[in-house]
C-alpha cells in the first residue's frame, strides 16, 4: 500500500508532462477555436454582391478575407490554385474592407472567387463567428457549415483536410 502511494506522484507527473507535451505539438494552435455554428445553417446574410440565398444547393468554400490582412496575402496564391487547378467552388466575403482597396488587392493578386460579398461593417463576419481573418468555411448543399479553418490555409491543410472533405461532400 505504501509503495503504491510512492508511485502516485511519479505517475501524476508523467501523466501531466505527457499532456503538456501533447498540447505543445508543433501543428497545434491553442488559440484556434471550433466554429460554434458547426453543422448548423450558415447565417442568413444579404451583403452587397452576395446573399446566403445565392449560395444554397451547392458544396462550396467561403473565404473571409481583407486587403489589410497580411496573412490573407500569404494565403492568396493557394486560393488561386484551389480555384484553378482543383476547380473548388470558392466564394469570398471582404471583411471590413474598403471596396477600392479590395479591388486593388484582387487586381494585383488575381481573383479566385466566383462571387464576393462586401461586409463593410463586419456584422456578417460576427454572425459567422469570425475572430481572425482569414477564415475559410466549408458549406454543404443544405447550407450548413461543416468545417471552419482559422488563419491562412496551408498546402498541407488543403491536401489533408480541405480537399478530402470537399470531395466527400460533393460526392454525396
Amino acid at each position: 500500500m505504501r509503495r503504491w502511494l510512492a508511485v502516485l506522484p511519479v505517475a501524476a507527473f508523467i501523466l501531466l508532462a505527457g499532456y503538456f507535451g501533447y498540447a505543445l505539438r508543433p501543428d497545434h494552435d491553442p488559440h484556434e477555436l471550433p466554429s460554434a455554428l458547426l453543422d448548423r445553417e450558415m447565417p442568413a446574410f444579404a451583403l452587397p454582391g452576395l446573399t446566403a440565398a445565392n449560395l444554397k444547393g451547392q458544396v462550396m468554400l467561403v473565404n473571409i478575407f481583407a486587403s489589410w490582412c497580411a496573412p490573407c496575402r500569404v494565403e492568396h496564391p493557394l486560393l488561386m490554385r484551389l480555384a484553378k487547378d482543383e476547380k473548388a467552388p470558392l466564394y469570398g466575403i471582404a471583411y471590413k474592407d474598403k471596396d477600392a482597396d479590395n479591388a486593388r488587392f484582387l487586381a494585383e493578386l488575381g481573383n479566385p472567387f466566383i462571387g464576393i460579398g462586401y461586409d463593410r461593417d463586419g456584422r456578417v463576419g460576427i454572425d459567422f463567428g469570425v475572430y481572425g481573418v482569414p477564415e475559410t468555411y466549408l458549406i454543404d448543399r443544405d447550407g450548413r457549415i461543416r468545417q471552419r479553418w482559422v488563419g491562412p490555409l496551408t498546402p498541407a491543410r488543403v491536401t489533408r483536410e480541405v480537399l478530402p472533405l470537399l470531395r466527400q461532400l460533393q460526392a454525396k
Partner: protein
Amino acid sequence: MRTIAVLLMLLWAGVSNAVEPSERLADPALEARARVVSQTLRCLVCQNESIDESNADLARDLRRLLRERIAAGDSDDAVRQFMVTRYGNFVLLRPPVMASTWVLWFGAPIALLGVIAGLLIVRRRPAAPPPALTAQEQARLATLLDQPE
C-alpha cells in the same frame, strides 16, 4: 503624499477599460448594464481579456453590437446568448457548469479533498514498530555502547 498618489494610481489601474466615449449609451442605467455584461464576455482576439478591457477591433465591434442589443431591449442573458450562438461557450469568461466542464469546476476541490483524506488516513494509522534487531546487530550495538568516549 507621494505614497498616497502612487496608491491612488494603482487603485485606478484596476478599473481601466477600453470603452471610448463615442461608444457609450446615453442612458446611464443601460450603459451600466452594458458595462457589466461586457465584462463577462471574452475578447476572442486576445482571449484573456474581456471585451470591456480589450482594444482589439473585434472587441470594439462587439461592444457596439452589445449596446445596440441592450438599447433595443434585450435582457442581459439574451445578449449573452446572442454571443454564445456565434462564438460558442468560450466567449463567456465564466464557463457554465455542464458535463464537459465538471473537471474544471470540481476537479481542484475534489483533488484537495482527496489529499486531505489521504493525509488523515496516513496520520491515523500508528506507524508499524521497527523490526527487532538480529543477534548480529545486537552484538554490534553492545560493542558500540561499551566503547569508552
